[in-house]
């Protein structure tokens, strides 16, 4: 009860959990365990004690993260810049492989599949875990070719009609079909920013992945385009498991069911989004989402 008697001047919340004595010792132990429930009853991806190093071990980017991403849920990852949220996202489909000197330890599983198994084929993995990037990055090809590229290289379509169908359903699912059906031959780069991003989502779902990773998918979009993508994310949740990294707390609050807060490579708190945004359990989460990072 002591801490709660702190007066309003020092902020009613900044000290909710901070012990008053010995700040230094506290800094060490404040990260030790993740607050909240890292597990999910029906996990699709489960990370266990994951550590990520860059520069051949010189930089410890992710520190002992254990986290489940449940089937059919949208998990939002938030945190200040450099907290490692993008790093862990990119570990999930091994996009970090291409970075020199990046080492990953611990276990990351997609269902029963060990993602960091030495014998695992990365191409196969990425057919199961799609990714959407920060900046809309359609290929400088036609809209049709953009969506058809994935199925083509993986040989998912038997013939042209099959491919046409995949392209159409993917574009429909990405809520873009009505807008582009008359100009499939035009370059994808000619679309507006929001349409481009939905095209990228269509391209990702054209290979029918189980999981879609989104790395700040709306940070380059205007609010209306953002709203459309958010609506789409909500619809996609029916079929896919989605992990989204975002800088917008409002967006995390709007689209996700669970929210994970990262800080300096630690997973500080995981809780239902409802809880995180009304009553976060860790003072760092609290400070971050109320805008008290200086």
């Amino acid at each position: 009860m002591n801490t709660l008697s702190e007066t309003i001047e020092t902020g009613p919340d900044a000290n909710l959990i901070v012990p008053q004595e010995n700040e230094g010792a506290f800094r060490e132990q404040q990260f030790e365990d993740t607050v909240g429930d890292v597990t999910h009853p029906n996990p699709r991806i489960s990370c266990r004690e994951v550590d990520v190093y860059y520069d051949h071990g010189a930089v410890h980017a992710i520190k002992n993260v254990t986290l489940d991403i449940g089937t059919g849920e949208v998990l939002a990852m938030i945190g200040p810049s450099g907290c490692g949220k993008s790093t862990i996202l990119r570990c999930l489909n091994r996009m970090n492989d291409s970075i020199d000197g990046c080492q990953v330890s611990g276990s990351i599983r997609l269902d029963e599949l060990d993602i960091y198994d030495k014998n695992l084929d990365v191409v196969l993995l990425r057919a199961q875990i799609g990714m959407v990037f920060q900046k809309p990055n359609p290929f400088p090809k036609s809209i049709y070719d953009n969506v058809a590229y994935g199925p083509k290289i993986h040989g998912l379509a038997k013939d042209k009609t099959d491919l046409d169908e995949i392209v159409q359903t993917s574009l429909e699912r990405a809520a873009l079909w009505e807008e582009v059906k008359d100009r499939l031959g035009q370059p994808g780069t000619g679309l507006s920013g929001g349409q481009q991003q939905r095209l990228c989502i269509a391209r990702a779902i054209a290979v029918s992945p189980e999981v879609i990773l989104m790395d700040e998918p709306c940070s380059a979009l205007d609010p209306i385009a953002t709203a459309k993508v958010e609506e789409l994310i909500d619809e996609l949740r029916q079929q896919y498991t989605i992990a989204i990294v975002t800088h917008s707390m409002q967006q995390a609050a709007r689209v996700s069911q669970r929210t994970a807060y990262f800080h300096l490579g630690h997973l500080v708190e995981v809780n239902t989004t409802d809880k995180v945004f009304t009553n976060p359990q860790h003072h760092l989460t609290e400070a971050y989402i109320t805008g008290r990072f200086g």
Partner: protein
Amino acid sequence: MTSPANSTVDIVRAGLPKRYARERRFRLMGMLAIGLGLVFVAILFLDIFSKGYTAFQQTYVRIQVHYDGSVIDPAGTENPDTLAFADYMALLKQSLREVFPEVTDRRAKRDLYQLVSPGAGQVLRDRVLANPEIVGTTEEVWVLANDDIDMLVKGHIDRDLPESNRRLDDRSLAWFDRLVDQDAIEKRFNITFFSSGDSRQPEQAGIAGALMGSFYTLLLTLLFSFPLAVGSAIFLEEFAPKNKWTDLIEININNLAAVPSIIFGLLGLAVFINFFGVPRSTPLVGALVLTLMTLPTIIIASRSALKSVPPSIREAAMGIGASPLQTQFHHVLPLAMPGMLTGTIIGMAQALGETAPLLMIGMIAFIVDVPQGFTDPATVLPVQIFLWADSPERAFVERTSAAIMVLLAFLITMNLTAVLLRKRFERRW
């Protein structure tokens, strides 16, 4: 407003004229610099053009030729070999003697024969070989005039100079004037310049040999250097691990681009000719040397073209599950291609203008025949220019300039192509 704000405005306003003046001065200096550059380019072009444009015309002399069977084919065999090796010059000499019957002196006769080119008999031979029927008949033929006559026609020999200081003596001038009176002197378009190889006789010298030599050499250079350079660029940029070794390679490539080209010539001489026994003076060995020289240029250009492809495209392809090779060939390479081509064309233009390394591998040899393949002895345009510029005859001056014009035309065309390619395929992200 209060006074401090006013004073800020006042101070700023007081400084404004100075700032604007400085800006105007800077602009003026820039314009001056560009103007100066343009003036020099204009002078260069004007000089070359004014010296060289006359080379595109050549003086011809009309001569009544009797195809005397006793001279051409004394045995009457009509054997093409006999026809080919007959002394056609004798026919010309005879015709000239008929035009100027008063010339009897031996030395005077030799001077008389100098009115036409020593190679003029070639024309007669070609006509006879094309149609052996004409042996025994007489016809009018326009043959190449000697270079001195050509120079006289083009006004490069001053009649007012004392005879001893002139290339042509008074007697030759008189003969020339008589020919002019007979309308037997005419300037025509200089086909020889574009159709024949080098010659000791300026009027017979052409750039065809050098052009073909350049063509074969560049073609081989392109074939060797483009795939090699693009391949190494892709490997270094996209696949090679970034470590001390690749750093070393990168530094060396950059250094190679700055190595004086003559070193490459020496290397070519030592390695390709002396060690591997590649025939010297050929487009093949020239291309090998030029490949070494252009590789760094194209590699550097290709790497920067690859670097300019946004990483988001690679991520997009990788994210869908394209293999690294598919990512490169389906997405990155098509986007980097215009930049690579631009670099290649610039490298090729550089190779086209290169002289020094080729001197070392014998491509400076005097070669009359137009090369027919990659292993024929050949020379290239810039070397040809170098050779001609070195020749004492006055008539070679205009040929040198003309050859420079041709070379410049090719260089400008290539650079223009590079610019157009870049414009055409440029993409915005």
